[in-house]
């Protein structure tokens, strides 16, 4: 865990402590379990977003994809009697294809990622609404998928605490993503492409492929999140389901140390960023702040967090420069030898 992640953790603990002091219900098992369930679902697509941001791209269609694929998933298993495992695979595959298309448009057609995914945002939202004729898609009476429900939206008791399965999913996804990003060759390539695509290319990295893979991974993970949301909400109004989720994802990534210029960010940071956003969401509910202020609170806290971080970075630089001044007489010797 780097210093940035650590300060984010401290911020979460401070905010959490303040909320708990004002309203002890924050720490109730039910509330915590619910919040962690949200963290699980939001965390998965935030990690998805991080992959794209690290290569210097952006993915704005996350929310719309969650709506469209959610609607399709429910439609498949409820109205078309498709085996849920098959439907699950089909939805994940669709997510991968969406990512592939976005990646290809960005790298092969040289369209800016902001534009490509903005169009995606509009298209998928429209498609979801058209497909259901703007009606709510949901599980009718009697429709029941016990295994699927247990797997996606269920909870398992651990020492008396109901652990939401979405959180377990997040932990698994985050662990794999962490190894991939921070330890594997592919991860090195992702960061290299994000930092300096030209230099990466000269080093023999097939940068187009690396970029496309980032979009594909993003698409696949988003599809997974879409299924979790569909099973959690059990009914989807395609006009609003998942709207603004891309902004939650970007916010979590930025809080977690991703630079929108690419080449930076850590998985631990992104997960912590998601936790902070969900705690804030919870704070608005528990402290009786009008829910209309929801976004304003979040925006303000993110801004303060980023400012504080900048301040700390500057200070650390000054401190290490000062340290360098006093250490130089010692350090000079080996260099001259």
């Amino acid at each position, binding site marked *: 865990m780097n210093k940035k992640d650590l300060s984010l953790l401290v911020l979460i603990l401070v905010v959490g402590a303040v909320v708990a002091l004002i309203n002890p219900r924050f720490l109730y098992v039910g509330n915590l379990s619910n919040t962690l369930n949200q963290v699980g679902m939001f965390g998965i697509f935030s990690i998805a977003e991080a992959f794209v941001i690290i290569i210097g791209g952006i993915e704005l269609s996350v929310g719309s994809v969650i709506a469209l694929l959610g609607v399709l998933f429910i439609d498949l298993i409820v109205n078309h009697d498709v085996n849920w495992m098959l439907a699950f695979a089909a939805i994940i595959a669709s997510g991968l294809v969406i990512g592939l298309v976005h990646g290809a448009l960005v790298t092969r057609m040289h369209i800016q990622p902001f534009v490509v995914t903005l169009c995606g945002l509009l298209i998928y939202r429209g498609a979801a609404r058209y497909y259901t004729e703007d009606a709510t898609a949901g599980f009718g009476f009697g429709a029941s998928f016990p295994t699927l429900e247990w797997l996606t939206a269920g909870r398992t008791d651990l020492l008396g605490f109901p652990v939401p399965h979405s959180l377990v999913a997040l932990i698994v996804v985050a662990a794999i993503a962490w190894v991939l990003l921070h330890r*594997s060759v592919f991860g090195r*390539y992702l960061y*290299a492409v994000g930092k300096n695509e*030209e230099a990466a290319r000269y*080093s023999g990295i097939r940068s187009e492929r690396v970029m496309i893979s980032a979009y594909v991974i993003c698409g696949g993970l988003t599809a997974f999140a879409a299924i979790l949301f569909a099973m959690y909400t059990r009914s989807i109004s395609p006009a609003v389901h998942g709207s603004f989720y891309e902004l939650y994802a970007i916010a979590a990534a930025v809080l977690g140390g991703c630079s929108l210029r690419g*080449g930076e960010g850590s998985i631990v940071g992104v997960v912590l960023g998601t936790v902070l956003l969900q705690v804030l969401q919870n704070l608005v509910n528990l402290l009786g702040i009008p829910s209309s202020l929801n976004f304003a609170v979040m925006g303000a806290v993110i801004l303060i967090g980023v400012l504080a971080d900048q301040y700390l970075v500057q200070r650390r630089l000054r401190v*290490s*420069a000062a340290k360098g*001044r006093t250490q130089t007489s010692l350090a000079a010797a080996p*260099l001259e030898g």
Partner: protein
Amino acid sequence: MTEPFLELVDISKSYPGVVALDHVGLAVSPGEVIALIGENGAGKSTLMKVLGGVVEPSGGRIRVDGVERSALTVAEAIAAGIAFVHQELNLFDNLDVAGNVFIGREPVHGGPLRLIDRKALYAKTQPLLDRLGADFAPDAPLAGLSLAQRQLVEIMKALSLDARLVIMDEPTSSLTLSETDRLMRVIAALKAHGVSIIFITHRLNEVMQCADRAVVLRDGRMVGALTRAELSPAAMIRLMIGRDLKSLYVPPAAPPGEAVLDIVEAVTDTYPERAVSLSVRRGEILGLAGLVGSGRTELARAVFGVDPLRGGAIKLNGEAIRVTTPRAAIDHGIYLIPEDRKGCGLLLDVSIAENISLPDLSSYLRFFLVNTAQETKNARAQREQLKIRAPDVSTTVGSLSGGNQQKVVLAKWLSMRPKVLIFDEPTRGVDVGAKQEIYEMLRRLTDTGVAILMISSDMEEVIGVSDRIAVMHEGAISGFLDRSQFSEHNVLQLAVGHAV
């Protein structure tokens, strides 16, 4: 000589783990040309950055026109008449030449909108271009210019300031002989107008040509100064590295073998109606000389698969190969060490170790994860071998001196097993001692059977190191020279398109 108007007294600067400057003093008189020389990482750029207000010294004083200060800001330095041509170019890709030269000082039409007066802008830029004999127009977009042309733009920027002191940090490192000559004449003209010049260079013949005084730094300390009368390459080298140098040319262990790389009638985008044919043989260093813009870099990029090849073929050991991406070239054992280290060679804010392993990560695999211990070990070995000056291999490349960054670029490729190495200006910004080591390493590589194609604008290097020279002129080969025919005259004749 007249009184100095500018004095640096006891200047020190340290970074974490590094003393860049250790009580250095320097006085500048009007109309004086000072050459600042020293090994890579000696502190030359840092000293000049102190003078330009870019770096704040940790100790010492700066006296300008009798006023003493502990540091200058950039604005104060400009107000004091100091213009600075930086080692790493700082230009805007999205502007044209004139826009870059007058950035922040654009002539404007009167009126509340302060619209840029393009006509005046171009009119003010043209004389600067003429002075340097540059071959591009004031409205040429910067993105289309070569590295050398960009360096000229930086120099124009400094000239346009009407400064009292012009600092040039390795202004000639990517210029060819004719442009360097032009610059030498500009320096003489400035001197005649009473302007002082400090220039940093690793090319000692330039010091001989135009310096009134050479100041030598080593390990952040001033180790000596040579007056015009005392100047000689040997004296400078002795001060810089504390020993004498042998001749550049190391003869090969065995005569060259059969051709490894054949470039047959290759056509690039820049010169669509010209074709280039040449072959590099096993165990030889083929120098590729030519003026800036003669198409050498473009040829290298096409062979390496960065740019498409518009016609012709590339053969490796007699078999035609298709190279459409750098990856394909690398898989065939053809590597290119690019000239633009900042843009194409390095990830600046990444560690030395990670930069070195990048092209060859798959050989650091343990399962499918990167074996960082092995990565660090290999990087340390490379640092030893190339004498990269850095506190550790975890240091970010961006904080190294220019020459040491170049060594990291070399280290990236040398740890792999090449068949053909294409160097584009292999020693740009590298000091004399390290150059010698690099040349010896090139020879060791060729003696193991590698074929080397070395693009170089440094005449001493081309003539001193190559076994054979090919010269390009406007997108085509104008001739080949064998060692017996090597001379500056012959290379230049071919470079301008005459026969020898």
